[in-house]
């Protein structure tokens, strides 16, 4: 751990920002085409972010500000942990549990800030977001535990390395199809895409957790959104799609997966929050357990 | 229905008690008792402390207990402690009756007026009954009877007076004094025995010749005390029962 690591980390952040924001922009276009619209330009997302950042804003007290800083800080810290292909800013920190728990700091910060605004709509949004999290994370983690048991590693790069060299069929997604399906369903929840997007639910609650934000706060939250999307999709790419032997391979896989998830999201209606919980605890959790038991007791697909 | 159930239950219970008692061969059948197997054997020959083969009426003297009446010898000598307890039971019962009823102030009125014969007859017969009672407890060591029957007789004499005269009231304070005196003396005799010979209620007097009136050591003395005590206690009970609640 020396100064170079931090420089790499900074560069990584900048890269992820550029990369992910572009992908988001492209995806907006893709979505528009799906819905038979023209859609915005691919760099529209950059414009949105910088515009928000340059506007004036209001604040509701120090926790409102602090929450945003903590959220973005936490998410950025988490982003630093994610390896891009073989490239890692720091060694030995891409442990899946560290990633997922550190991710929670960002979530918590945002939730705190939202509630700190004093607007009940924000609190309601937070409560839904947290409930959603309880739903999607558990099946995913059960899956992860069985993977750790099978592969004796818990780092993202470790998972990725184990899948490389056997072609597409070496990917965990194909070796453990049940698990792969579960992972994708959970990813959909993590990303807050339909059918699991009721916590943002623009049409129902005034505007979900973000209702009070404007200006620099909103801009930072846009950033946060981009980073967290990157983290979540990357985890799946690493664990189920073999990561990347080169950064480019990783980026291609990443872009395809993200677009795929977006397209799925485009064709679904929305679950109510309790329906989402019920769904997650019925289907994906059961599948995750089945997959886990298969892995643990039969070793099918492990080697 | 309930009665029948109870009868059946008690029938079954009785059956088991019978079979439990009589199936045991060690339980001697009625009348087939062999006293040699019982402690009473030694009471008959009066040889608990000294070995005697045969005790003869009017001849044997200075035995461990001088009573010609074996029952009396047991009651007042061998198991005198039981008798002290017995006296105490009576004492405490009469005390209890007094505690319960003694506070009542009223008098029981007869529904009839005692006629002349009854009144005079009662007064005449009273000393005779009392005297008989006294006779019985004085001769307790020689003849059937003793302190308890004698005392009861005295009490019954008093009861007769109550029946005959509704205005009659026994002088309870003197009876109480007698009771207290007799009881205390009984205990003191026992303690005297303890002091002189080391055994409580020891027969420290010469037991004389069996069959004599003045024999058997402390037995007649104790029986007299018991008689007095029983008489006064029963009188007390009777007196208390004749009280009624005062209407307020």
């Amino acid at each position: 751990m020396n100064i170079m690591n931090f420089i790499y980390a900074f560069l990584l952040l900048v890269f992820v920002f550029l990369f992910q924001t572009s992908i988001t922009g492209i995806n907006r276009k893709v979505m528009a085409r799906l819905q038979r619209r023209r859609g915005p330009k691919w760099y529209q997302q950059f414009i949105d972010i910088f515009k928000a950042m340059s506007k004036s804003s209001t604040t509701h007290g120090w926790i409102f500000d602090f929450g945003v800083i903590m959220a973005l800080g936490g998410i950025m810290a988490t982003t630093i942990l994610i390896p891009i292909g073989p490239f890692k800013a720091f060694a030995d920190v891409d442990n899946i549990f560290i990633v997922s728990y550190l991710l929670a700091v960002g979530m918590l910060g945002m939730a705190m800030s939202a509630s700190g605004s004093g607007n009940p709509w924000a609190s309601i949004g937070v409560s839904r977001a947290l409930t959603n999290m309880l739903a999607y994370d558990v099946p995913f983690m059960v899956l992860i535990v069985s993977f750790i048991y099978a592969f004796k590693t818990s780092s993202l790069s470790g998972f990725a390395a184990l899948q490389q060299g056997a072609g597409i069929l070496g990917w965990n997604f194909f070796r453990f199809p049940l698990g792969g399906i579960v992972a994708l369903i959970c990813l959909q929840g993590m990303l807050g895409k339909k059918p699991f997007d009721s916590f943002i639910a623009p049409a129902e609650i005034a505007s979900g957790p973000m209702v009070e934000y404007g200006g620099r706060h909103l801009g930072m939250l846009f950033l946060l959104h981009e980073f967290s999307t990157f983290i979540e999709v990357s985890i799946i790419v690493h664990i189920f799609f073999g990561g990347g032997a080169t950064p480019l391979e990783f980026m291609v896989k990443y872009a395809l997966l993200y677009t795929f998830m977006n397209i799925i999201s485009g064709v679904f209606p929305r679950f109510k929050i309790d329906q989402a919980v019920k769904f997650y605890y019925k289907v994906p959790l059961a599948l995750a357990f089945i997959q886990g038991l298969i892995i643990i007791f039969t070793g099918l697909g492990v080697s | 229905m309930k009665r029948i159930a109870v009868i059946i239950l008690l029938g079954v219970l009785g059956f088991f008690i019978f079979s439990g008692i009589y199936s045991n061969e060690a339980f001697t059948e009625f009348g087939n008792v062999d006293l040699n197997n019982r402690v009473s054997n030694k009471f008959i020959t009066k040889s608990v402390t000294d070995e005697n083969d045969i005790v003869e009426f009017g001849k044997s003297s200075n035995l461990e207990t001088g009573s010609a009446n074996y029952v009396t010898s047991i009651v007042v000598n061998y198991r005198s402690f039981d008798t002290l307890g017995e006296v105490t039971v009576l004492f405490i019962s009469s005390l209890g009756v007094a505690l319960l009823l003694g506070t009542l102030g009223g008098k029981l009125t007869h529904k009839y007026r005692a006629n002349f014969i009854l009144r005079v007859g009662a007064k005449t017969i009273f000393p005779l009954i009392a005297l008989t009672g006294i006779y019985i407890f004085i001769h307790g060591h020689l003849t059937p009877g003793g302190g308890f029957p004698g005392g009861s007789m005295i009490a019954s004499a008093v009861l007769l007076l109550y029946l005959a005269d509704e205005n009659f009231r026994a002088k309870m304070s003197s009876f109480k004094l007698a009771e207290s005196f007799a009881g205390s003396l009984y205990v003191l005799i026992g303690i005297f025995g303890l002091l002189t010979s080391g055994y409580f209620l020891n027969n420290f007097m010469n037991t004389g010749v069996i069959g004599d009136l003045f024999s058997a050591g402390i037995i007649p003395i104790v029986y007299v005390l018991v008689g007095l005590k029983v008489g006064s206690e029963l009188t007390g009970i009777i007196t208390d029962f004749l009280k009624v609640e005062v209407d307020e």
Partner: protein
Amino acid sequence: MIQYVSIVLMLIGIYGLLIDRNIIKIIVALNIFEVGLNIFIVSVGFVSGGVAPILTSVNSNSALIYVDPLPQALVLTSIVIGLGTTALALAIARKMYNAYNSLDLDEIGGMDND
């Protein structure tokens, strides 16, 4: 025979205790029980052909067959104790009559009606 009767008497006394609701009758039943018991006690000491356990000028010798004197002594105690409890029971019965104006246990009322 007398022994059997005594046990039956005791059972009759118990029957009375079980059936009767009247205090006085209960006391009577108790006395029946005690009488039965006392007869049983005495009967335990009976010896066929034995004489009353008193030395007299007629039965002047301890070598004769006497009935067991010990149960007789015991029964004396038992009777007196029975007398004492009966007296006390009657006194309590009178107090109960004064307090509850009834001699019937059902009428007097249950545990929790104090």
